[in-house]
């Protein structure tokens, strides 16, 4: 038995630094892979005019063509270049996704702090948030859009609004737990004014979970935008977006599957990148949660 335990011991001893390295690397890896992928997509989208063709160029002679050196992903039913459209689609999807996420996070932060600090409004605010949460994301967005008709501005609001309650709840719970802590009570007793207390003590505690939540919100926002565009109520059809590309190619699934799968894969990779970034951030901020997950 002795030799077995000896080998075990030495193996474990040899692995010790490796273990730690692997663990730390894994935490960072998610952030690096997710963030890197997202950055790459953003750069690709920004640089689109330099390497991708015109996404709106209609060419009736090359309809539904398979991939070729001229058209990397083939062409759609109007003879438009699928690759160019997918790349330009990234612009709109990322823009709407990121701006909506920022809007939702900002609004949620504001309302959450108010709910957590001003107990008078807490109950009513949280009931409103419950009400918003009881309506499915897409239906809520549809209801908003149905008032004005499709457009980028209303789309961003419609995507952001259903995401606000989750941020509000999170921020409120952090505020509630922070305000109970003795150093905050001490600051209040010492005569510190409310805005100062919020700025100095509450905000720093809110930032890490808010960043994680923002990533989740961002992934959801990109999905919602794509869903709305797919249903024909999101991005107007003249602007290429992943959702409306898929919608307009529905009938050609059998003949030109790439017209659907190219934007579909871009969409999935983008959401995956944001999700990985979110998971990585959570692991970084709360190492204990990782083991449980």
């Amino acid at each position, binding site marked *: *038995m002795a030799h*077995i*335990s000896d080998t*075990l*011991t030495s193996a474990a001893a040899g692995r*010790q630094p490796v273990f730690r390295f692997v663990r730390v690397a894994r935490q960072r890896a998610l952030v690096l892979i997710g963030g890197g992928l997202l950055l790459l997509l953003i750069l690709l989208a920004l640089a689109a005019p330099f390497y991708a063709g015109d996404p709106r160029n209609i060419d009736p002679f090359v309809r539904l063509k398979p991939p070729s050196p001229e058209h990397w992903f083939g062409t759609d039913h109007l003879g438009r270049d699928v690759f160019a459209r997918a790349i330009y689609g990234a612009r709109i999807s990322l823009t709407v996704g990121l701006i909506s996420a920022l809007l939702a996070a900002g609004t949620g932060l504001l309302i959450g702090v108010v709910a957590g600090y001003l107990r008078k409004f807490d109950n009513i605010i949280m009931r409103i948030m419950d009400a918003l949460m009881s309506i499915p994301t897409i239906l809520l967005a549809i209801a908003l859009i149905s008032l004005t008709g499709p457009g980028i501005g209303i789309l961003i609001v419609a995507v952001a609004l259903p995401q606000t309650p989750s941020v509000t709840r999170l921020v409120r719970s952090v505020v509630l737990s922070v305000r109970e802590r003795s150093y905050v009570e001490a600051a209040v007793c010492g005569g510190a004014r409310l805005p100062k207390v919020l700025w100095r003590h509450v905000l720093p505690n809110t930032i890490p979970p808010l960043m994680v939540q923002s990533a989740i919100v961002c992934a959801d926002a990109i999905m919602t935008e794509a869903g709305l565009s797919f249903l024909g109520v999101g991005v107007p059809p003249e602007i290429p977006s992943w959702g409306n590309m898929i919608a307009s190619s529905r009938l050609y699934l059998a003949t030109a599957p790439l017209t659907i799968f190219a934007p579909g894969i871009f969409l999935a990779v983008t959401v995956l990148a944001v999700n990985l970034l979110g998971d990585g951030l959570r692991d970084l901020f709360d190492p204990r949660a990782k083991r449980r997950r």
Partner: protein
Amino acid sequence: MLMRVSSEERIIENFREDKTIDNDVLLDVRDLETHFFGEESVTRALGGVSFQVKKGETLGVVGESGCGKSVTALSIMRLLPKMSAKTVGGEVCFHGRNLLDLPEREMRKIRGNKIAMIFQDPMTSLNPVYTVGRQIAEAVEIHSGASRSDALSKAAEMLRLVRIADPERRVNNYPYEMSGGMRQRVMIAMALACSPELLIADEPTTALDVTIQAQILRLIVDLKKRTGTAVMFITHDLGVVAETCQRVIVMYAGRIVEQATVTDLFSRPVHPYTKALMRSVPDRRRGKEHRLPEIPGIVPSLREPIVGCSFAQRCPFATEVCREKSPVLEEYGADHAVACWHAKEVVSA
């Protein structure tokens, strides 16, 4: 009587020969080694533990927390947490079969049936969503194949045995409807439901109120007498040992340092650690001014292999040899064994 053999193997060989002849031995644990695997380290919770439980006896296992008492029990039952702990060496012979080699399916037939176990905290050891009757009945159903209703009446019978009033009604209670002492009685009823040959009681009274403790202890002693079950009684309380056990094992840092009959151990402790332990038990006769001596130093970390005697750092008798070579358990008088290089001097000191 003191005989020192140069080679460790020969002593163990001798030991084994002795024991295989002995028909009274129920459980024979040899060189049990259990390790816990952390993310960055290995904890050697048991560093080669050997002892026996004889049929119908009550064996006490004492030592301070973290010395490996519970790990020994869980290793025998093979109930260690799968992901983090593993028994890496030794044997646990029960009826001539090494439990460590049994397939899981066979081991399940032993758990709760031949060897049963009760745990420290009765508040968390019962499943909150089932009635206590069903939880006792489950053991009966598993091992005797009895029907649910037969098992439930057996459960009521067991509740009566552990002296719970109105057992027919109590079987339908949920654990949250019972007090801690009652829950521990339920645990005992569950453990004894299949008339096991060995009952492992892991600190069964530690989490209870002092008055309840005495009741539970008396119950265990009494039931043991009536059923003839051998009991392995794990505790950190020497007083409990004196009241309930015939033989005692003293553990320290994952090893057995002394093993003797209760009367022998209390009248003639040999190992310096045992002696120190005895001195730290409060004694009414010594009065209030008397300050309890504490054992200086701390228990060595089990994350590093221990060279020499594990108690050497805290031992007033320690010499060069103690820090270099690990002492083995040697006979020191009839039914008394000690792992100490300086047993003789310690006794005369």
